[in-house]
């Protein structure tokens, strides 16, 4: 019997930049095995029984936090949510002090979201507990990229050789950055496009190409990922109006026909109906937006499983 000891190299998952192709495949394969648990009459296994998972969310989030919480609970872990509004941050405690206080309660894994890029990295330098980055500023959102890759692999059977287009607010999108790194490492070619005010300079250095219009970006694409206009992140508007944005950069029943036959449409959510995506496309036959949400739980289960197991292994 071959009990191959496959595991992740690092104790933390801070970004797609740190994962190689084999590790990504291990996460996807593990998620495939775990997905079935979500459809059982009793959706819980005892694997992480007695483990404590703390979700440290310094930025509002419902779906990612819920997805991580469900993932932990279905693996049998005790999950605790710690959010900024109820925390001591308002009383002046520093991020590191808050995290050290939490670590003193001996959790087995921390899931962190923060509005500052690099916050999970900073904490990983001060804490021994494994850390999963659940989104840091405009930097990375690795679990989203992994569920996107999982969904594409499930729908298209492969990643190698596929053409991907990511359209929208690239500059403020941690999803775009993680997706570009993740998909290109898995052998896909990625084109990004958005209004010039929302395109980061030198994005090509991550390994993608750029296009000047949505039509150019999505023509012949096997996968289109539409991004939300993150209005809450802007101090001054980078756009004349949402209506103009929708006309120039929105995906609708007309331009969606430019995609390759059998193309799938994705969106990390929450969607702004009628802004970056028309309701007909969001609910249409090509849309796999709700599959992404469903797969998110399986992928996060895989991350929790692999990272908590990794630490036991080294003890």
């Amino acid at each position, binding site marked *: 019997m071959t009990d191959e000891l496959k595991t992740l190299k690092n104790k933390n998952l801070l970004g797609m930049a740190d994962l190689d192709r084999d590790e990504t495949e291990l996460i996807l394969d593990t998620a495939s*095995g775990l997905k079935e648990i979500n459809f059982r009459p009793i959706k819980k296994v005892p694997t992480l029984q007695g483990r404590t998972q703390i979700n440290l969310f310094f930025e509002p989030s419902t779906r990612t936090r819920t997805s991580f919480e469900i993932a932990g609970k279905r693996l049998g872990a005790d999950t605790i949510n710690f959010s900024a509004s109820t925390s001591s941050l308002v009383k002046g405690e520093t991020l590191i002090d808050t995290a050290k206080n939490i670590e003193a309660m001996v959790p087995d894994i921390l899931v962190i979201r923060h509005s500052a890029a690099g916050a999970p990295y900073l904490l990983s330098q001060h804490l021994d507990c494994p850390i999963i980055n659940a989104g840091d500023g405009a930097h990375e959102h690795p679990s989203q990229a992994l569920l996107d890759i999982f969904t594409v692999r499930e729908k298209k059977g492969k990643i190698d050789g596929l053409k991907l287009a990511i359209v929208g607010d690239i500059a403020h999108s941690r999803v775009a950055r993680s997706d570009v790194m993740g998909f290109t490492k898995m052998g896909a070619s990625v084109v990004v496009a958005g209004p010039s005010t929302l395109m980061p300079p030198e994005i090509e250095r991550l390994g993608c190409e750029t296009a000047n219009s949505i039509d150019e970006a999505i023509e012949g694409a096997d996968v289109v990922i539409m991004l939300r206009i993150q209005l809450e992140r802007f101090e001054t508007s980078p756009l004349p109006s949402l209506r103009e944005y929708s006309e120039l950069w929105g995906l609708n029943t007309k331009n969606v026909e430019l995609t390759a036959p059998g193309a799938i449409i994705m969106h990390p959510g929450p969607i702004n109906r009628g802004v970056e995506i028309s309701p007909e496309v969001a609910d249409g036959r090509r849309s796999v937006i709700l599959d992404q949400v469903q797969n998110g739980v399986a992928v996060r289960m895989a991350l929790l499983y692999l990272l908590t197991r990794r630490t036991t292994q080294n003890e």
Partner: protein
Amino acid sequence: MESEMGESKTVMDYGRIATSLDRMAAQIRECNPGNPDLVFVGIRARGDYLATRLADRVSKAEGRDIPLGALDIGLYRDDADKVIPEVRASEIPGSLEAKVVVLVDDVLFTGRTIRAALDALMNYGRPQKIELAVLVDRGHRELPIQPNYVGLTVETSVVDKVEVNMSEDGKKDSVIIRKK
């Protein structure tokens, strides 16, 4: 047969395994005559192959398709802190509520795998009954678990390795005991 590990002995070859499976299938039918609630579930990996062979035999004899599933017990192991089990999907044909489940594995040893499998099965509903069929019972139980159907009972030392080989067409099937 000699190997660098020490003495090896083939205790079952293709013919013997086929005969044993025939007999086990007949016993399962005898204990569950025409039961419409019968389901076979094999424990990955190898128990699922054996479950397929048993289900084929019973299905053929009764002229109906007996539902068949495969169970991965990695997530239920009690030694999971010693090894990181590779996770594979379980495929259970619908709810097991009120079913008679014949759980199938290749080798019965400490009983810990079966303990884990019983926990896992309960998450798919409350079966009316679970029976256990194993190709080889090698003894040395660490839990109070006994099989209902056995292909071969062999005396082994606790450090021996019992190797079950299964091939696609069954022609190269064998059970080998490697002495330490």
